[in-house]
């Protein structure tokens, strides 16, 4: 390729915005003589229909194979310049407005010199650019739902109802999750059997649905659209021939037979082998249907799915660490979830009137345990209190709370509870005590009445909150999803609540945040719709993914280690290779490679190296320092554009190159810049915790620190390389640092390596 390119250079004066400061005419005249430039055109309004038409015509008429547009920032007029009839990787936008004419408007000479240098440098980039096409991959229209609670079941039914094949995997022997254990749901107080039974019958009817119970996720490989999941299924030991005669249950002395309740799915018992007496085979011998196989082994199977819906649910908070409430130590102190079972199975007689105290927010909204509100506990306690009033009107019920939170329609239930004589007291009991008589004594300070109450209760219910189930943590690394600080699934809450941070993986129900039944079902529907929408597209992988030059690679594995998305694997020849569907083209691998063997499709090491050669180190004369800055695409570059838009000035000593992430800047490139006489190298990236690519800016910082040390060894000034943290809105901070840096470099003096 070399110099034989035919580039069309289009200079826009932007109705004077650029032309007033930069001498476009002299630039155009000069550039027409450069090698590689075939046509030069000046326009006052390049983004207009006429301007675009001119470019398109020139490409056809003159056979241009490269286009350079010197105008506004590449983030402006994206649509206008997107369809020029040439591969978009052969079009270079040179930002002479936001980063030149607007910010150097008082220094027309400096601005013109800088613009000329920009044209030369980006022409050099164009010489080495290649046409690239995005990779399109089909999406498998199959979903995997992990977790068979109410959210998982609903996500399955919704997706399968839209003619999509769904695999539903549940760890326990039966579907239904926590909801199946409940006595009834609020606000309508219907029993879960009613809703679940309907759902189960639909599950059974739909041929698109494949349910696997007693199963866990082994490994997840592949990529969005084409996941491959290994499922490990523990043996049930009882097969479909079971007639539910119940004899196994009768002969088992170790309670190892887990029997389905009336509406369980699947309606087959399971045997918990770990509980079995050694050598006992009584159940197998007695089974008239021959349905029991005690030697069944664990099975493995592979599922291929395009999308994954996580619905791993929640576990109740265990209040044992809160010593003062005496859970497990005192009799008749239960958690709310235990009370569901008690009320469902009528384990306690309510013939005698009882005095019951509910304590709200046990562990919730407490930094030591669960720092968040669990959303449902107020309603659960009101529901359970109403139940107590229902079974025996003489029952005396107290609810001790911080605040009662009953949003929306639930307020009705709260009012109903008040009317039915349930006593709400704002104040949390201090310590529960129990004497021999099984009654529980405690005192509480009623913060509304301002007095101390001493209460003796027959039963205390601790309203414990919801914490994410262990499934979240187990899946975190297997699937590669992010969890928030409370271990719930991280999502962009206000805009994309059901999307996880990985494409093609969605969440439903309480694994994302504490939710009641109705919200779980809602979120399941959203997750199913998201998955269906995902199925309609194709996975399109941006063409700028990195490529490893295997002639140079020494397999040091640094790229594998430093890739923020763990996208690298080893190909058949043992060289690292990015799995392009996981790759987000951040270029951290390009920055990491000690041998400069990795290049992004649209910004190679070679291009950067040639650009540095083409950069005239004395474009502002022999005495002015030149600062080469690498700006991260997401924040720093846009912040610097902002400086232009706001009209904040900075000296033309700054020359910027956009990189996808500050972590993409290779040490060798910085070294070359210093070696060839650039006075200062400035890398601008996001603050550590804001980096879009996890640890890109952190890596950039350490790499620059190493180079800084090397400069010191070389008896050069370590200040010649610098990292600055720039957020999206830091335009002023940036311009100030550039001014200071230029001053500092003037004081230090010329880079002795400048020729």
């Amino acid at each position, binding site marked *: 390729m070399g110099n034989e390119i035919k580039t069309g250079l289009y200079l826009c004066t932007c109705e004077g915005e650029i032309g007033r400061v930069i001498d476009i005419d002299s630039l155009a005249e000069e550039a027409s003589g450069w090698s590689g430039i075939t046509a030069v055109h000046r326009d006052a309004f390049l983004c207009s229909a006429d301007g675009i038409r001119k470019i398109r015509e020139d490409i056809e008429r003159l056979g241009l194979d490269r286009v350079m547009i010197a105008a506004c920032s590449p983030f402006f007029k994206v649509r206008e310049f997107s369809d020029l009839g040439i591969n978009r990787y052969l079009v270079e936008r040179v930002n002479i407005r936001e980063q030149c004419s607007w910010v150097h408007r008082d220094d027309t000479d400096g601005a013109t010199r800088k613009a000329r240098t920009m044209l030369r440098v980006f022409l050099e980039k164009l010489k080495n650019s290649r046409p690239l096409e995005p990779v399109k991959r089909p999406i498998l229209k199959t979903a995997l739902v992990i977790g068979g609670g109410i959210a998982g079941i609903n996500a399955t039914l919704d997706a399968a109802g839209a003619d999509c094949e769904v695999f539903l995997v549940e760890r326990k022997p039966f579907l239904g999750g926590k909801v199946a254990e409940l006595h009834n749901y609020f606000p309508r107080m219907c029993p879960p059997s009613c809703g679940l039974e309907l759902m189960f019958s639909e599950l059974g009817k739909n041929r698109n649905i494949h349910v696997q119970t007693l199963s866990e996720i082994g490994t997840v490989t592949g990529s969005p659209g084409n996941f491959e999941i290994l499922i490990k299924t523990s043996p049930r030991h009882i097969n479909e021939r079971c007639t539910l005669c119940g004899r196994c249950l009768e002969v088992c002395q170790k309670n190892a037979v887990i029997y389905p309740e009336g509406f369980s799915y699947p309606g087959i018992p399971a045997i918990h082998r770990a509980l079995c007496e050694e050598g006992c085979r009584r159940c197998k011998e007695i089974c008239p249907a021959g349905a029991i196989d005690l030697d069944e082994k664990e099975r493995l199977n592979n599922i291929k799915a395009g999308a994954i819906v996580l619905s791993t649910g929640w576990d109740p908070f265990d209040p044992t660490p809160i010593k003062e409430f005496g859970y497990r130590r005192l009799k008749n102190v239960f958690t709310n979830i235990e009370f569901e079972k008690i009320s469902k199975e009528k384990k306690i007689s309510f013939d005698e009137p009882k005095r019951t105290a509910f304590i709200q927010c046990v562990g919730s909204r407490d930094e030591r345990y669960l720092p968040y509100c669990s959303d449902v506990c107020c309603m659960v306690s009101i529901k359970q209190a109403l139940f107590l009033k229902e079974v025996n009107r003489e029952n005396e019920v107290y609810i001790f709370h911080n605040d009662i939170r009953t949003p929306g329609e639930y307020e009705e239930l709260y009012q109903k509870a008040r009317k039915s004589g349930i006593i709400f007291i704002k104040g949390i009991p201090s310590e529960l005590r129990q004497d021999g008589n099984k009654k529980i004594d405690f005192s509480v300070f009623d913060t509304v009445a301002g007095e101390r109450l001493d209460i003796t209760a027959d039963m205390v219910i601790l309203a414990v909150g919801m914490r994410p189930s262990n499934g979240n943590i187990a899946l975190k690394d297997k699937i590669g999803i992010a969890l928030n600080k409370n271990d719930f699934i991280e999502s962009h809450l206000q805009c994309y609540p059901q999307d996880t941070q990985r494409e093609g993986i969605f969440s439903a129900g309480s694994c994302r945040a504490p939710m009641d039944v109705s919200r779980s079902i809602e979120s399941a529907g959203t997750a199913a719709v998201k998955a269906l929408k995902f199925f309609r597209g194709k996975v399109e992988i941006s063409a700028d993914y990195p490529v490893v030059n295997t002639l140079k690679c020494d397999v040091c594995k640094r790229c594998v*280690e430093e890739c923020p998305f763990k996208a690298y694997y080893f190909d058949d020849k043992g060289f690292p290779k990015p799995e392009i569907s996981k790759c987000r083209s951040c270029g951290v691998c390009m920055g990491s490679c000690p041998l400069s063997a990795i290049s992004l499709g649209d910004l190679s090491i070679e291009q950067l190296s040639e650009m540095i050669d083409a950069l005239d180190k004395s474009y502002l004369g022999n005495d002015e320092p030149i600062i080469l800055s690498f700006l991260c695409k997401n924040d720093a570059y846009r912040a610097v554009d902002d400086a232009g838009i706001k009209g904040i000035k900075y000296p033309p000593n700054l020359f910027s190159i956009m990189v996808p992430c500050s972590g993409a800047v290779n040490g060798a490139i910085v070294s070359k810049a210093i070696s060839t006489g650039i006075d200062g190298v400035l890398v601008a990236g996001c603050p550590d915790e804001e980096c879009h690519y996890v640890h890109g800016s952190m890596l950039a910082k350490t790499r620059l620190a190493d180079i800084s040390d090397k400069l010191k060894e070389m008896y050069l000034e370590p200040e010649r390389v610098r990292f600055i943290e720039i957020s999206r809105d830091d335009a002023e901070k940036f311009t100030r640092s550039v001014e200071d840096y230029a001053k500092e470099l003037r004081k230090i003096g010329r880079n002795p390596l400048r020729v």
Partner: protein
Amino acid sequence: MPPYVVKDKCDGCKGKEEPLCEQICIGDLMTLDAVTGKAYCRSLRDCWDCMSCTKICPKGAIEQRIPYQLGYHGAKLIPMIGPDTITWTCVDINGKVERFTYRTRNKK
């Protein structure tokens, strides 16, 4: 004179199997300390002072002690590698600094 590894800087090339200095050393002298995970030269007297390890180290963690035939204590040779450049800083025993930048053929 052997290479000197700055322990604080060496990160064992992260991969932890065969660091770059081990791969490049013509005498197979560099290797990782199994306990600390840092590189070291396992036979100091066999080093030929080729400085390949110094040049390839991505962390700049390997310094070279110059053999006395070239310069006594205080003399230094420091390479800085670009994609197609190498800049040598030579410091003699009197502290006189000279720098040379060359093109290399590492490009492709």
